């Protein structure tokens, strides 16, 4: 079977579910809203104007994760996966199409999110944003898009392993909100290599940890690749 029709089919499945479109919209809204809030009251000491403008990504990623997880978990309800795999028995190809159908919209919405949140963030910060260079802006917008797409795909892989959206979100959301805020602030060491902490380096003007902007994103990409491979293995190996 050719890949394009399978991808088209998976894309139809995503865009015909209102909840999926809501999740995509929520990425833009949550990110922008929390970035604007952070810009109103910038912290003193280690103030990073670029990260302040992208502060909301920490919240927008929750919507991205929900998007990536739901796309797969809906297949594990009421034997929907059996219908899908009856139509496309090449499971590896099916899962690859699912991942592309999640990743591409997440990346596109991520670009919009990055652009909007940076624009709004700069407006709110006013003079304090003057230190952000053109290169840093581009890096932030692209990095934001790639980061959000990687987090969505991380959830896609995990949901395929756990075969449940509730379990996936039950693990990821507390992890993203609690562990990162608590453990993550104790910067340095292992915490820098957590999937979210590593990838967010790209959103900082200056990085003090062991990872630079792009190497941090590469670490997140490794986490995502591992989750997707585990998900693909699970889909291929287990009875549908």
């Amino acid at each position, binding site marked *: 079977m050719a890949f394009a*029709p399978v991808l088209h*089919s998976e894309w*139809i499945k995503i865009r*015909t579910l209102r909840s999926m479109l809501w999740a995509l919209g929520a990425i833009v809204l949550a990110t922008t809203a929390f970035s604007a809030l952070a810009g109103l009251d910038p912290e003193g000491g280690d103030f990073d104007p670029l990260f302040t403008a992208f502060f909301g990504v920490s919240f927008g990623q929750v919507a991205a994760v929900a998007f990536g997880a739901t796309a797969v978990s809906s297949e594990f309800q*009421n*034997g929907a996966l059996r219908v899908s*795999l*009856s139509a496309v*028995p090449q499971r590896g190809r099916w899962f690859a199409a699912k991942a592309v159908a999640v990743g591409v919209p997440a990346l596109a919405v991520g670009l919009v999110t990055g652009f909007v949140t940076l624009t709004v963030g700069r407006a709110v910060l006013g003079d304090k944003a003057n230190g952000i260079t053109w290169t840093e802006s581009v890096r932030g917008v692209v990095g934001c898009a790639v980061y959000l797409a990687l987090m969505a795909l991380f959830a896609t892989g995990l949901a395929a392993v756990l075969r449940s959206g509730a379990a996936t979100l039950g693990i990821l959301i507390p992890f993203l909100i609690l562990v990162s805020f608590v453990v993550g602030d104790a910067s340095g060491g292992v915490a820098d290599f957590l999937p979210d902490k590593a990838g967010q380096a790209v959103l900082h003007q200056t990085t003090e940890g062991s990872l630079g902007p792009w190497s941090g994103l590469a670490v997140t990409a490794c986490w995502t690749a591992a989750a997707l491979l585990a998900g693909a293995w699970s889909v291929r190996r287990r*009875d549908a």
Partner: protein
Amino acid sequence: MTSIDVQDLTKEFGSKRAVDHLTFSVLPGRVTGFLGPNGAGKSTTLRLVLGLDRPTSGTATVGGRAYATLDEPLRHVGALLDAQAPHGSRTARDHLRALAVSNRIGPGRVDEVLEETGLASVARRRVKTYSLGMRQRLGIAAALLGDPPVVLLDEPSNGLDPEGIIWIREVLRRLAREGRTVLVSSHLMNETASFADHLVVLGRGRLLADTPMRDFIEARVEPRVRMRTTDGPALRGLLARHGYEASEDDEGRWTVHRARVEDIGTLASGAGLPILELAAEEGTLEQAYLDLTASEAEFTTTPVQPQEA
């Protein structure tokens, strides 16, 4: 022609053997009823045929090929496993479009099957607003999408209203007439009797019967003839002379055991006996099935033989 071939198929879930060395074929041009109590392994067998579950041993093929190797499989095999499978928040049309696109089936065909299953007017409504009967129709629409030569349906009459039951019966008969291979699982005997030509019966994962439905009934339910006459004593003598066992009830109605109406009718008219009523008492699938499962229960309560190594 496209047949389904199950060869020595076994599936174990942990220590439980759901399908046990099953071998049978489903041939085109007739409706094969797939019978057995709940938990007999019917649904597992269907999943194995569709390549959804991995067999512990043995093979299941469609037209000689494993399902997973079929290119655009919806054009070869249509299946309904679970009417609840379509996502409730999607419309019926979108559900079918996503399926059709993956196998490069045109959008015109989606509208055709919606029309054929009587869902055209509600096709743009979300599936969660559907009754179970409408979901069954949607599942059947999905099965017919690729105009496949092989159709597998798991309990398709579930939840259908009387009109729907008549409709599905006619759909099944028509599919078989068109030369397709039709396998329909059910636990409803009267329903199965109304559409099946052939039967495959499972019990505890094993094959109990694989025969034409008529033979299955005739082998297990004794044919009887019901009759009335004005001359009881003469009838009793006549039947006794020809070795028939017969009994008469209070109202003068005779029941002749292990007899066919052709034989008894000829006999009576040859003897010049006045006949008021003569009718065959057909065995039902239900009687035959209960007889089979009763003997199976007897068999399974005998001490278990040591398993072959």
